[in-house]
């Protein structure tokens, strides 16, 4: 899991290294650190830290070690890595078929967002773009399989994204 936290540290040398230590000691992976030197308040300085840990138990251990070190934890956000789903559909792009597709993809779970956009065309040739974000790479595989089955049933052509 990926976590983003706002910390307040004493504005004295060595505090930042001390704050990062519990993360590295518990096999966490530090992704980014923003150290706000210009925002000192009541002798404390703000640090925004993004890191990855394997589970919540490890995360709790890191929080507990921060408290012992006198580090203030102001805000905690759990972040999810997302993967892009993308299909251009050529053929039957009726609203009913698009709803069947978006409902089917939503039902796979771990879907953050899904959108449909239709082409603007004066001809009979139509196409639609289905794009979305999912939280697991595995969901893209499931969605690809679902789309292949739908394309066989409904007879449309799929142009798949390149992210899988």
């Amino acid at each position, binding site marked *: 899991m990926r976590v983003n936290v706002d910390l307040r540290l004493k504005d004295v040398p060595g505090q930042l290294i001390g704050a990062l230590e519990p993360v590295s000691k518990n096999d966490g992976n530090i992704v980014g650190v923003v150290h706000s030197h210009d925002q000192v308040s009541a002798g404390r300085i703000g640090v925004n830290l993004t890191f990855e840990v394997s589970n919540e138990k490890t995360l709790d251990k890191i929080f507990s070690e921060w408290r012992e070190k006198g580090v203030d934890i102001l805000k905690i956000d759990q972040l999810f890595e997302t993967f892009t789903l*993308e299909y*251009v559909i*050529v*053929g039957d792009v009726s609203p009913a078929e698009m709803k069947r597709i978006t409902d089917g993809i939503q039902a796979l779970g771990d879907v953050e967002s899904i959108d449909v*956009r239709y*082409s603007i*065309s004066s*001809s009979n*040739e*139509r*196409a*639609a*773009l289905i*794009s979305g974000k999912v939280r697991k790479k595995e969901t893209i595989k499931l969605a690809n399989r679902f789309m292949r089955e739908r394309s066989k049933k409904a007879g449309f*052509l*799929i*142009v*798949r*994204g*390149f992210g899988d």
Partner: protein
Amino acid sequence: MDVVLVGFGTVGQGVAESIYLKNNLFQEGFGDDLRVVAAFDSKTYVIDKKGLDPIDLVKAKTNKGVIGQRRKEDIKDMLPEIEYDVLVEMTPTNIVDARPGLDHFRAALSAGKDIVTSNKGPLALKFRELSRLAQKNRCMMRFEASVGGATPVINLASELLKCERISSIRGIMNGTCNFILSRMESEGLPWEPALREAQQMGFAETDPSYDIDGIDSACKVAILANAIMNKDVTVHDVERTGIRGINLDAVNLAAQEKKVVRLIGEITEKGVEVAPRLIPRGHPLSISGTLNTFHIQTDLAGEITVAGRGAGRYETASAVMSDLWALMRARKGSAHRH
């Protein structure tokens, strides 16, 4: 090194001319040259164990339409009677039963002769059988010209990247499809006029199914999967979707997302596939025009991309010549000239 040329169409003539043009390099490099001791076109043949003049063969084909006297037997039955080292097999690809190329392959390999080929059929349908036959008879089968024309993807991956673990090969493997999709995107041409333009320019056949339905790309995917990624597949195992039906709306929707539609052949650990895909602009596989492009993912080197002309008389001959060079080197040791 004595060679037999089988197939004397565009590629065969290009190879004959290239042998004439480049034989001095073989002589300088190895102290030996390439002697064409027999040549076959679809109906006629000519044999001379002292060596034939390759340019005379091309002239005969151009002026008379044939290169020699009419054959009464199949080529496969005549090959055992000829003394040679390498069969250069350049008959047209047939993916129904791979014949007559497959018969020529079997005749040569069974007799312990090396093969250089541009013919996809036998490789896309019978790769494992032919590899085993070559191994059993201690001979070599080289086929750079069968995939990507002049683009040296097979020899790059199987020789220069020998120490890499290759996890995927993705590529634009058919110049005709790429030309059609590029024209739709850049000129706003609908499908039919873009296809007609490709036919008028000689990129697409009158019956374009072999290209646009992804069959040609699927053959190349099967060959790369067997030769480079050690799979055991035929063209029939490749999941295949062509570009027939891609319309201008689809191309325009992709463009709004800063993407292009390209027919991509793909070999990964999970499978083999040919399908139209959405490629981000600027990616090496978003290339326009008729070039073939291969994008190889490796563990040490990372991503490697190689692009080149995928078809043509001299382009395909270039790949055949590099394979003939490799066979000469295997026989003679390293070239004297570096």
